């Protein structure tokens, strides 16, 4: 704008613009100063709080991985296992953490869901090993998932605390922190049957048609044969089967005295029990794992009467643990009692390890000594069957369902599992 063109009014405009410019510059200056002040203040706060953190050292966090089938066909097994671990870890964290190799750690359970699928299990293991950098993985609980992640754990030196039936042979990094499902439950059960109910001679063994199912079926059948009983047939069924009527029809034609379900998922147990009773089967129905009993009870109703199982050792110790568990989670599941070994052995090994390095952790697990569990002390065994003494031998109890409740009838001292024989070797398939 020029004075010649616009006259005196233009001068006013120019002055106003200059005043505005000055004001803007002042504002800018204030903004810059206040921003710098704010940054400085934040910096000071960070420094001060940082100093405080340094002054009051907080316990470090140790991440422990977990791979379980939270969803999918074997999901019924996950809740009790993870709850047992959570209960134990919570107790440790409430007490301010635990001393591991001279430092105090809070325990952080990083749970992942493998949906009982080997591919998903591998993805879970990759996440836990490479991203979360966990030194220990609890799980998996299904054999195909365990087989899928075994090489990864071995190659990356991570301790694997499995609770699956298979594999039969252990690798160096692997510990089975659960009963040895194949014979640990069937052997005491069939020994009891042979002694106490000698008229029940002829048995059917049922299990899933997969690696773990075949292993447990073979274990169940060998236990029955070793107890002097007869195995009329081993019936394998596809995972997810709901209609067992054709299989039960086949079973009924063999006129057995009892049906023993090995590693059968809870929903399948319910279907088999109910459908067998509906189709006129009057013999004993037993299961290596009768859980979750609430579901089984709901679905089978009166048909659950007389069912037998091998659960955690019964007594006041179990009652006390059960009370804590129910107070926290609102329901009881017998698998929880058998799985107390999982957190207890892990915590005991962490308590004695020299460092969180693989070699030290492995040494700690191997030399952990007797592990307190429900019903006594668990110890390592399994070398005869699985080449390494990495199998927890857990005290168990035999139960019978009376008036809708599982009643303990005999406690069992664990013994080392016998050498493995396949179904084909026993000429049962």
């Amino acid at each position: 704008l020029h004075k010649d063109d616009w006259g005196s009014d233009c001068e006013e405009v120019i002055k106003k613009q200059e005043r505005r410019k000055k004001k803007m510059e002042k504002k800018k200056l204030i903004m810059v100063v206040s921003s710098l002040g704010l940054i400085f203040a934040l910096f000071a706060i960070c420094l001060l709080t940082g100093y405080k953190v340094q002054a009051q050292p907080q316990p470090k966090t140790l991440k422990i991985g977990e791979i379980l089938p939270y969803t999918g066909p074997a999901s019924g097994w996950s809740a009790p296992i993870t709850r047992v671990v959570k209960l134990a870890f919570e107790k440790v964290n409430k007490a301010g953490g635990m001393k591991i190799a001279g430092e105090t750690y809070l325990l952080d359970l990083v749970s992942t869901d493998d949906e009982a699928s080997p591919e998903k299990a591998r993805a879970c293991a990759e996440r836990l090993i490479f991203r979360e950098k966990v030194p220990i993985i609890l799980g998996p609980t299904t054999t195909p998932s365990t087989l899928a992640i075994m090489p990864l754990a071995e190659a990356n030196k991570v301790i694997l605390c499995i609770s699956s039936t298979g594999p039969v042979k252990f690798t160096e990094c692997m510990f089975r922190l659960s009963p040895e499902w194949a014979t640990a439950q069937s052997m005491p059960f069939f020994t009891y049957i042979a002694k106490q109910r000698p008229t029940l001679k002829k048995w059917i063994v049922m299990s899933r048609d997969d690696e773990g199912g075949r292993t447990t079926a073979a274990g169940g059948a060998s236990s029955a044969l070793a107890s002097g009983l007869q195995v009329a047939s081993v019936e394998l069924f596809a995972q997810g089967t709901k209609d067992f009527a054709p299989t039960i029809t086949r079973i009924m034609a063999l006129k057995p005295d009892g049906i023993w379900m090995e590693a059968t998922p809870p929903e399948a147990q319910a279907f088999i029990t109910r459908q067998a009773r509906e189709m006129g089967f009057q013999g004993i129905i037993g299961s290596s794992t009768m859980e979750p009993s609430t579901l089984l009870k709901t679905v089978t109703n009166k048909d659950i009467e007389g069912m037998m199982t091998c659960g955690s050792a019964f007594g006041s110790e179990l009652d006390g643990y059960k009370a804590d568990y129910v107070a926290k989670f609102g329901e009881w599941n017998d698998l929880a009692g058998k799985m107390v070994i999982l957190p207890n052995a892990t915590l005991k090994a962490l308590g004695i390890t020299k460092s969180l390095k693989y070699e030290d952790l492995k040494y700690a697990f191997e030399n952990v000594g007797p592990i307190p569990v429900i019903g006594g002390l668990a110890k390592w065994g399994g070398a005869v069957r699985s080449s390494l003494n990495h199998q927890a031998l857990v005290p168990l109890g035999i139960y019978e369902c009376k008036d809708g409740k599982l009643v303990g009838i005999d406690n069992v001292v664990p013994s080392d599992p016998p050498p493995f024989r396949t179904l084909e070797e026993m000429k049962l398939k």
Partner: protein
Amino acid sequence: LPIELVTLSQTFLNGLTLSVIYMLFASGFTLIFGIMGLLNFPHGPIYAFGAYIVFYVMGWLGSSLNIYGLSIILAILFCGLVGVMMERFFYRPFFGQLAQQVSVALGLSLIFSGLTLVIAGPTEKGIPPIISGSANLGGIYLPYSRLIIIILSVVIMIGLLLLIKRTKIGYFMRAVTEDSWAAQLEGIKLTRVTMFALGLSCALAGFVGASVMTLFNLATPYMGGEVLSIALLVIMIGGLGSIPGAILGSLILGFMQSFSQTYLGGGAIAELVGFILVYIILLVRPRGLMGHE
């Protein structure tokens, strides 16, 4: 009766039960394929809705036969309504665009399965036995729950066939299945027919889901996927889009499964039977036993 005869008769009854369940589910599934040319993937999750409705209604109102009857009606109504809504809001905007409709169907299936998982949780939901006991016919046991399923399914199947063969809407549906453009030229409102068909098909899925609760007593978030794969086998055997084909396919698959499981043993072999059968049929007759060119 001699044990061989008992086993044979029992196997036949087991096969019949399986067949009628497959029949009802696959009929609704194939009906939609016939009319819309679409594999309606949400059919599986809707079947699971039926089962969960029984679980929740019986949980709230108690477990008795009357409540069970009420929950079946509610399942039919709810699932039918879901079908109508699906047609109106999800399929109709993509009318005539098959690729988009298939994508929508897959998306809806995932959404419905996810919803079930979120609302009901990942664990199985069980109900106490509604109908227990069995009739003993000379050593052949027929559980009352299976007997009721067989009777109900046969009645509903006859009703469905009568609806398609003898009513105006059935005539419209057949016309649309034959040639949808010619049907439109004749004045048939295509959207009304597809809406009715989808409602009917989903209501059938809901009914099957609710009625199998008396057999298995368990609702799981994945039950839809399992039965959907069987329905696919059934309609491939019978012929895509053909209801008589679905009936025939269900009978063949149901009896084959029952006999193979009883006489050959369960497990992987029995699972394979259906696939081997489909392979042979597709090899010999690529359009299925009763499918059109």
